[in-house]
């Protein structure tokens, strides 16, 4: 049986051409093995060999995504590859995006089994781990040996169309694919087992991992709320009537900043909700039910609070990506600090 033909993709740095100053180089096809291909080829053993290496500058690829992808695909196709390996890219962002994009295109457009490898925080993981197999690597090239050891067996399995095991076993990022299978224990038994293990302080493996959320230490309390400027922020999608910023009803890509200087009460005629994740009738009739502008105005007048901040900030928290929410709050937080806001009331629906 003839050897499996492998084409390998690397960037200008791993090809030994140069660093950032060479990141603009255009795609280039070389016969045989270059750079980290040595280690990969050695691990492929007798079953497969790298026949060609495609090299491209990271900046060039990312700035010319479509044309670079096309050129690279033609190069790979010209070599009659049976298997495609990109990277590993470790934590190099643009390289990771390039590896992910090409791997996905090779798989999709050429129908050739393909995989890449990168570090968990590489943006390429977020972008492509659902589409393609991305092996989890360490964050720098010091992890090359470890990466090769994990990537090659999975690559060979893909080339030979063997069954691929679970992400944890095969070392790739979960692709969000559910597989039905039979077990000898039903769900309730497994749940109780897991609970007992948890209570007993033993190790256990969840069948449905929750997304991880990081923590922030509580900020210091207000010394005197009667002197404080308080701002309203909401994920309930309250906007001026007509939703002037066109905040999306789900998976919001933006937030709005709205001036409520002189606004004593939110009314049906002036405000509404853009949120698509709950029945909007009650909020549309009276948006104070979501953000208590009326009460805070009254308290401001009575001296119970120092001041209601002139602007409120609003987005739609409905399937909105954690990354988007983080970006919004980063901007909002900076503005609030710059405006001397002392505390925030954040309402969610």
């Amino acid at each position, binding site marked *: 049986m003839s050897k499996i033909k492998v084409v390998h993709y690397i960037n200008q740095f791993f090809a030994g051409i140069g660093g950032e100053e060479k990141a603009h180089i255009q795609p280039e096809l070389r016969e045989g093995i270059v750079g980290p291909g040595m280690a990969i080829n050695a691990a492929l053993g007798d079953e497969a060999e790298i026949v060609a290496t495609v090299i491209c500058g990271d900046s060039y690829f990312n700035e010319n995504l479509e044309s670079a992808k096309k050129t690279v695909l033609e190069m790979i196709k010209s070599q009659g590859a049976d298997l495609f390996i990109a990277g590993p890219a470790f934590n190099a962002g643009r390289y990771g995006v390039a590896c992910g994009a090409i791997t996905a295109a090779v798989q999709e457009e050429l129908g050739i089994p393909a995989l890449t490898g990168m570090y968990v925080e590489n943006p390429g993981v977020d972008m492509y781990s659902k589409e393609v197999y991305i092996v989890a690597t360490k964050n720098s090239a010091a992890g090359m040996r470890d990466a090769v050891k994990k990537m090659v067996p999975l690559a060979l399995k893909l080339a030979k169309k063997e069954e691929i095991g679970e992400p944890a076993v095969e070392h790739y990022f979960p692709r969000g694919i559910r597989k039905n299978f039979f077990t000898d224990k039903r769900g309730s038994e497994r749940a109780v087992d897991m609970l007992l293990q948890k209570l007993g302080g033993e190790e256990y493996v969840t069948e449905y991992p*929750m997304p991880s*959320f*990081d*923590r*922030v*230490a*509580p*900020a*210091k*309390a*207000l010394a*005197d*709320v009667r002197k*404080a400027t*308080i701002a309203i*922020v909401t*994920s*309930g999608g309250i906007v001026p009537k007509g939703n002037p910023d066109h905040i999306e009803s789900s998976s919001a890509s933006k937030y709005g900043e709205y001036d409520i200087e002189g606004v004593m009460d939110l009314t049906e005629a002036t405000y509404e909700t853009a949120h698509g994740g*709950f*029945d*909007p*009738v*009650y*909020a549309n*009739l*009276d948006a*104070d*039910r*979501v*953000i*208590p502008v*009326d*009460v*805070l105005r009254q*308290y401001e007048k009575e001296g*119970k*609070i120092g001041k209601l901040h002139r602007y409120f900030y609003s*987005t739609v*928290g409905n399937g909105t990506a954690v990354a988007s*929410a*983080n970006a*919004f*709050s*980063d901007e*909002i*937080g*900076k503005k*609030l*600090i710059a405006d001397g*806001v*002392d*505390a*925030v*009331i*954040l*309402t*969610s*629906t």
Partner: protein
Amino acid sequence: MVKGIEKFGIPVVHMCTVVPISLTVGANRIVPTVAIPHPLGNPNLDAQEELALRKRLVDKALHALETEVEEQTVFE
């Protein structure tokens, strides 16, 4: 969002109905509210009662902002 703002050092009180989500995402000061579509209101009440209800909830929120907390705290 709560954490994203609080990390700048300003206290944030999260007024929401689904407290477990708030706890999961890591809000430090939490005031439970009425219902998802109308957290700070209740359309079944008359206007005066509803305003009184909203005042009670805002009072709780202000109290939460004036209270030092070491860990996640739900202000019932």
